[in-house]
Protein backbone atom coordinates (compact mmCIF):
# COMPACT_ATOMS: atom_id res chain seq x y z
CA UNK A 1 0.00 0.00 0.00
CA UNK A 2 1.18 3.55 -0.60
CA UNK A 3 2.69 4.42 2.78
CA UNK A 4 4.07 7.95 2.51
CA UNK A 5 1.64 10.90 2.44
CA UNK A 6 2.93 11.96 -1.00
CA UNK A 7 2.15 8.53 -2.48
CA UNK A 8 -1.18 8.26 -0.64
CA UNK A 9 -2.44 11.70 -1.72
CA UNK A 10 -1.17 11.20 -5.28
CA UNK A 11 -3.07 7.91 -5.51
CA UNK A 12 -6.21 9.53 -4.11
CA UNK A 13 -5.98 12.39 -6.64
CA UNK A 14 -5.41 9.98 -9.53
CA UNK A 15 -8.33 7.77 -8.48
CA UNK A 16 -10.61 10.84 -8.14
CA UNK A 17 -9.54 11.97 -11.62
CA UNK A 18 -10.29 8.47 -12.93
CA UNK A 19 -13.78 8.55 -11.38
CA UNK A 20 -14.48 11.92 -13.02
CA UNK A 21 -13.04 10.57 -16.27
CA UNK A 22 -15.42 7.60 -16.14
CA UNK A 23 -18.36 9.98 -15.62
CA UNK A 24 -17.20 12.18 -18.51
CA UNK A 25 -16.67 9.24 -20.88
CA UNK A 26 -20.12 7.91 -19.98
CA UNK A 27 -21.76 11.27 -20.76
CA UNK A 28 -19.86 11.72 -24.06
CA UNK A 29 -20.57 8.11 -25.05
CA UNK A 30 -24.28 8.37 -24.32
CA UNK A 31 -24.59 11.61 -26.35
CA UNK A 32 -22.54 10.02 -29.13
CA UNK A 33 -24.94 7.02 -29.25
CA UNK A 34 -28.03 9.25 -29.38
CA UNK A 35 -26.37 11.29 -32.15
CA UNK A 36 -25.92 8.18 -34.31
CA UNK A 37 -29.47 7.10 -33.56
CA UNK A 38 -30.48 10.52 -34.90
CA UNK A 39 -28.49 9.88 -38.10
CA UNK A 40 -30.02 6.43 -38.40
CA UNK A 41 -33.52 7.87 -38.20
CA UNK A 42 -32.96 10.20 -41.14
CA UNK A 43 -35.14 8.57 -43.79
CA UNK A 44 -34.50 9.26 -47.45
CA UNK A 45 -36.64 8.48 -50.50
CA UNK A 46 -36.38 9.24 -54.21
CA UNK A 47 -39.55 10.99 -55.42
CA UNK A 48 -38.74 11.62 -59.04
CA UNK A 49 -36.00 11.40 -61.65
CA UNK A 50 -36.83 13.64 -64.59
CA UNK A 51 -34.80 13.92 -67.77
CA UNK A 52 -34.88 17.13 -69.81
CA UNK A 53 -33.90 16.18 -73.38
CA UNK A 54 -33.51 19.81 -74.55
CA UNK A 55 -31.15 20.86 -71.78
CA UNK A 56 -29.59 17.40 -71.39
CA UNK A 57 -30.12 17.59 -67.68
CA UNK A 58 -31.50 15.24 -65.07
CA UNK A 59 -33.35 16.54 -62.03
CA UNK A 60 -33.40 14.19 -59.04
CA UNK A 61 -35.98 14.97 -56.37
CA UNK A 62 -35.42 13.43 -52.95
CA UNK A 63 -37.28 13.71 -49.68
CA UNK A 64 -35.63 13.51 -46.27
CA UNK A 65 -37.65 12.89 -43.13
CA UNK A 66 -36.09 13.33 -39.72
CA UNK A 67 -37.67 10.68 -37.51
CA UNK A 68 -35.40 11.31 -34.53
CA UNK A 69 -36.08 13.65 -31.61
CA UNK A 70 -33.08 15.83 -32.49
CA UNK A 71 -32.86 18.71 -34.93
CA UNK A 72 -30.64 17.67 -37.84
CA UNK A 73 -28.81 19.84 -40.33
CA UNK A 74 -27.92 18.83 -43.89
CA UNK A 75 -24.70 20.42 -45.14
CA UNK A 76 -23.93 18.65 -48.42
CA UNK A 77 -25.82 16.25 -50.68
CA UNK A 78 -23.86 14.24 -53.24
CA UNK A 79 -25.67 12.07 -55.75
CA UNK A 80 -24.38 9.71 -58.43
CA UNK A 81 -26.86 8.31 -60.94
CA UNK A 82 -26.67 5.06 -62.92
CA UNK A 83 -29.15 3.73 -65.44
CA UNK A 84 -29.20 -0.05 -65.93
CA UNK A 85 -25.65 -0.26 -64.57
CA UNK A 86 -24.21 2.57 -66.69
CA UNK A 87 -22.92 5.70 -65.01
CA UNK A 88 -24.93 8.70 -66.21
CA UNK A 89 -24.14 11.72 -64.07
CA UNK A 90 -23.07 13.00 -60.67
CA UNK A 91 -23.68 16.19 -58.76
CA UNK A 92 -23.22 17.92 -55.43
CA UNK A 93 -25.24 20.61 -53.68
CA UNK A 94 -24.18 22.52 -50.58
CA UNK A 95 -26.60 24.02 -48.07
CA UNK A 96 -25.81 26.66 -45.50
CA UNK A 97 -28.88 26.47 -43.26
CA UNK A 98 -30.89 23.41 -44.23
CA UNK A 99 -32.37 22.30 -40.92
CA UNK A 100 -34.61 19.28 -40.44
CA UNK A 101 -37.02 19.56 -37.54
CA UNK A 102 -38.14 16.28 -35.93
CA UNK A 103 -40.92 14.68 -37.99
CA UNK A 104 -40.79 17.33 -40.70
CA UNK A 105 -40.05 16.23 -44.30
CA UNK A 106 -38.02 18.38 -46.68
CA UNK A 107 -37.64 17.97 -50.42
CA UNK A 108 -34.33 18.64 -52.14
CA UNK A 109 -33.83 18.76 -55.90
CA UNK A 110 -30.43 18.31 -57.45
CA UNK A 111 -29.89 18.95 -61.17
CA UNK A 112 -27.06 17.30 -63.08
CA UNK A 113 -25.81 17.74 -66.65
CA UNK A 114 -25.73 14.59 -68.79
CA UNK A 115 -22.83 14.18 -71.26
CA UNK A 116 -23.68 13.52 -74.95
CA UNK A 117 -23.11 9.75 -75.16
CA UNK A 118 -24.95 9.09 -71.91
CA UNK A 119 -27.81 11.37 -73.03
CA UNK A 120 -28.35 9.19 -76.12
CA UNK A 121 -28.40 6.08 -73.91
CA UNK A 122 -30.89 7.67 -71.49
CA UNK A 123 -33.20 8.70 -74.34
CA UNK A 124 -33.02 5.19 -75.80
CA UNK A 125 -33.89 3.59 -72.46
CA UNK A 126 -36.68 6.07 -71.75
CA UNK A 127 -38.20 5.48 -75.19
CA UNK A 128 -38.09 1.73 -74.59
CA UNK A 129 -39.62 2.29 -71.15
CA UNK A 130 -37.26 -0.10 -69.49
CA UNK A 131 -34.28 0.01 -67.17
CA UNK A 132 -33.67 0.79 -63.53
CA UNK A 133 -32.27 3.99 -62.09
CA UNK A 134 -29.75 3.47 -59.35
CA UNK A 135 -29.09 6.42 -57.10
CA UNK A 136 -26.05 6.33 -54.85
CA UNK A 137 -24.83 9.16 -52.74
CA UNK A 138 -23.88 10.61 -49.41
CA UNK A 139 -25.41 13.23 -47.23
CA UNK A 140 -23.25 15.22 -44.84
CA UNK A 141 -25.33 15.75 -41.75
CA UNK A 142 -24.91 16.96 -38.17
CA UNK A 143 -27.13 16.81 -35.10
CA UNK A 144 -28.47 19.97 -33.50
CA UNK A 145 -25.22 21.91 -33.88
CA UNK A 146 -23.67 19.45 -31.42
CA UNK A 147 -21.47 17.44 -33.71
CA UNK A 148 -19.09 17.80 -36.57
CA UNK A 149 -20.94 16.91 -39.80
CA UNK A 150 -20.52 13.28 -40.81
CA UNK A 151 -21.06 11.58 -44.16
CA UNK A 152 -23.94 9.11 -44.26
CA UNK A 153 -24.16 6.89 -47.35
CA UNK A 154 -27.40 5.87 -49.11
CA UNK A 155 -28.44 3.86 -52.17
CA UNK A 156 -31.87 3.60 -53.81
CA UNK A 157 -33.27 1.94 -56.94
CA UNK A 158 -36.18 3.21 -59.04
CA UNK A 159 -37.62 1.57 -62.15
CA UNK A 160 -38.34 3.67 -65.26
CA UNK A 161 -42.10 4.18 -65.56
Amino acid sequence: MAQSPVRRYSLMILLSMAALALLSLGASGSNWVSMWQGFDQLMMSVDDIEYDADEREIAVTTTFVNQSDEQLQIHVLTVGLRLSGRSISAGTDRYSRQYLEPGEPITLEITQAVPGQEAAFVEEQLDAGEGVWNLQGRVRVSVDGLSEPLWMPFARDMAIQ
Partner: protein
Amino acid sequence: MSWRIGEWAIVVIAGGLVAAAVFGLSAEPLAPLGLIDLSFWLAALVILVTGVLASLILVDLRRAFLTAPGIAVLAALFYSATLISPAATLGHYLNHLRNYALIQSVPVVILTLALIALGVLIGTVINSSVREYDL
Protein backbone atom coordinates in the same frame (compact mmCIF):
# COMPACT_ATOMS: atom_id res chain seq x y z
CA MET B 1 -0.74 -10.72 -7.80
CA SER B 2 1.69 -8.79 -5.64
CA TRP B 3 0.84 -5.28 -4.46
CA ARG B 4 3.65 -3.82 -6.59
CA ILE B 5 2.04 -5.18 -9.78
CA GLY B 6 -1.46 -4.34 -8.52
CA GLU B 7 -0.41 -0.76 -7.77
CA TRP B 8 1.13 -0.44 -11.23
CA ALA B 9 -2.04 -1.83 -12.84
CA ILE B 10 -4.26 0.59 -10.88
CA VAL B 11 -2.11 3.54 -12.02
CA VAL B 12 -2.22 2.35 -15.66
CA ILE B 13 -6.00 1.78 -15.69
CA ALA B 14 -6.74 5.09 -13.91
CA GLY B 15 -4.29 6.93 -16.19
CA GLY B 16 -5.83 5.34 -19.29
CA LEU B 17 -9.31 6.43 -18.21
CA VAL B 18 -8.13 10.00 -17.53
CA ALA B 19 -6.30 10.29 -20.87
CA ALA B 20 -9.26 8.85 -22.83
CA ALA B 21 -11.73 11.19 -21.10
CA VAL B 22 -9.49 14.20 -21.63
CA PHE B 23 -9.20 13.41 -25.35
CA GLY B 24 -12.97 12.99 -25.43
CA LEU B 25 -13.40 16.46 -23.94
CA SER B 26 -10.94 18.22 -26.24
CA ALA B 27 -10.86 16.43 -29.62
CA GLU B 28 -13.49 16.07 -32.34
CA PRO B 29 -15.94 14.43 -32.58
CA LEU B 30 -16.71 13.90 -28.87
CA ALA B 31 -15.66 17.35 -27.58
CA PRO B 32 -19.02 19.11 -28.19
CA LEU B 33 -20.85 16.17 -26.58
CA GLY B 34 -18.96 16.09 -23.27
CA LEU B 35 -19.59 17.72 -19.90
CA ILE B 36 -17.18 20.59 -20.64
CA ASP B 37 -15.30 21.68 -23.75
CA LEU B 38 -11.64 21.46 -22.76
CA SER B 39 -8.99 23.37 -24.71
CA PHE B 40 -6.24 21.20 -26.19
CA TRP B 41 -3.51 22.77 -24.03
CA LEU B 42 -5.47 22.16 -20.84
CA ALA B 43 -6.05 18.57 -21.94
CA ALA B 44 -2.31 18.14 -22.52
CA LEU B 45 -1.63 19.58 -19.05
CA VAL B 46 -4.03 17.09 -17.40
CA ILE B 47 -2.26 14.16 -19.12
CA LEU B 48 1.09 15.58 -18.06
CA VAL B 49 -0.14 15.81 -14.44
CA THR B 50 -1.28 12.16 -14.71
CA GLY B 51 2.31 11.25 -15.59
CA VAL B 52 3.60 13.25 -12.62
CA LEU B 53 1.12 11.47 -10.30
CA ALA B 54 2.16 8.07 -11.70
CA SER B 55 5.76 8.91 -10.86
CA LEU B 56 4.87 10.13 -7.35
CA ILE B 57 2.86 6.96 -6.65
CA LEU B 58 5.30 4.42 -8.08
CA VAL B 59 8.50 6.29 -7.09
CA ASP B 60 10.73 3.91 -9.03
CA LEU B 61 11.61 5.59 -12.34
CA ARG B 62 11.65 2.35 -14.36
CA ARG B 63 8.20 1.25 -13.13
CA ALA B 64 6.84 4.75 -13.66
CA PHE B 65 8.23 4.88 -17.21
CA LEU B 66 6.61 1.54 -18.00
CA THR B 67 3.20 3.10 -17.26
CA ALA B 68 3.54 5.36 -20.35
CA PRO B 69 2.96 2.66 -23.01
CA GLY B 70 0.31 0.99 -20.82
CA ILE B 71 -1.61 4.24 -20.30
CA ALA B 72 -1.26 5.17 -24.01
CA VAL B 73 -2.65 1.82 -25.20
CA LEU B 74 -5.48 1.79 -22.65
CA ALA B 75 -6.39 5.42 -23.45
CA ALA B 76 -6.68 4.49 -27.14
CA LEU B 77 -8.75 1.41 -26.24
CA PHE B 78 -11.17 3.32 -23.97
CA TYR B 79 -11.46 6.16 -26.50
CA SER B 80 -12.06 3.72 -29.39
CA ALA B 81 -14.62 1.77 -27.34
CA THR B 82 -16.55 5.01 -26.76
CA LEU B 83 -16.42 5.86 -30.47
CA ILE B 84 -17.54 2.37 -31.53
CA SER B 85 -20.29 2.13 -28.87
CA PRO B 86 -23.19 3.18 -31.20
CA ALA B 87 -22.51 0.00 -33.23
CA ALA B 88 -23.87 -2.04 -30.29
CA THR B 89 -27.39 -0.99 -31.30
CA LEU B 90 -26.69 0.14 -34.90
CA GLY B 91 -24.62 -2.76 -36.24
CA HIS B 92 -24.68 -1.53 -39.86
CA TYR B 93 -22.42 1.40 -38.92
CA LEU B 94 -19.74 -0.88 -37.39
CA ASN B 95 -17.23 -0.57 -40.26
CA HIS B 96 -17.68 3.20 -40.47
CA LEU B 97 -17.24 3.63 -36.71
CA ARG B 98 -14.34 1.18 -36.48
CA ASN B 99 -12.39 3.01 -39.19
CA TYR B 100 -13.15 6.29 -37.48
CA ALA B 101 -11.92 4.94 -34.13
CA LEU B 102 -8.74 3.52 -35.68
CA ILE B 103 -7.82 6.85 -37.26
CA GLN B 104 -8.49 8.70 -34.01
CA SER B 105 -6.46 6.20 -31.95
CA VAL B 106 -3.15 7.08 -33.60
CA PRO B 107 -2.78 10.61 -32.16
CA VAL B 108 -4.18 9.39 -28.82
CA VAL B 109 -1.37 6.79 -28.49
CA ILE B 110 1.43 9.10 -29.66
CA LEU B 111 0.42 12.16 -27.61
CA THR B 112 -0.37 10.17 -24.45
CA LEU B 113 2.93 8.31 -24.66
CA ALA B 114 4.91 11.53 -25.03
CA LEU B 115 3.03 13.49 -22.37
CA ILE B 116 3.02 10.70 -19.76
CA ALA B 117 6.77 10.12 -20.28
CA LEU B 118 7.41 13.84 -19.83
CA GLY B 119 5.18 13.89 -16.75
CA VAL B 120 7.07 10.93 -15.27
CA LEU B 121 10.35 12.81 -15.70
CA ILE B 122 8.92 15.89 -13.97
CA GLY B 123 7.49 13.64 -11.24
CA THR B 124 10.92 12.10 -10.70
CA VAL B 125 12.42 15.55 -10.18
CA ILE B 126 9.65 16.34 -7.66
CA ASN B 127 10.19 12.95 -5.99
CA SER B 128 13.88 13.66 -5.61
CA SER B 129 13.34 17.06 -4.04
CA VAL B 130 10.47 15.93 -1.77
CA ARG B 131 12.31 12.85 -0.55
CA GLU B 132 15.80 14.31 -0.88
CA TYR B 133 16.79 11.39 -3.09
CA ASP B 134 19.61 11.63 -5.56
CA LEU B 135 18.51 11.47 -9.17
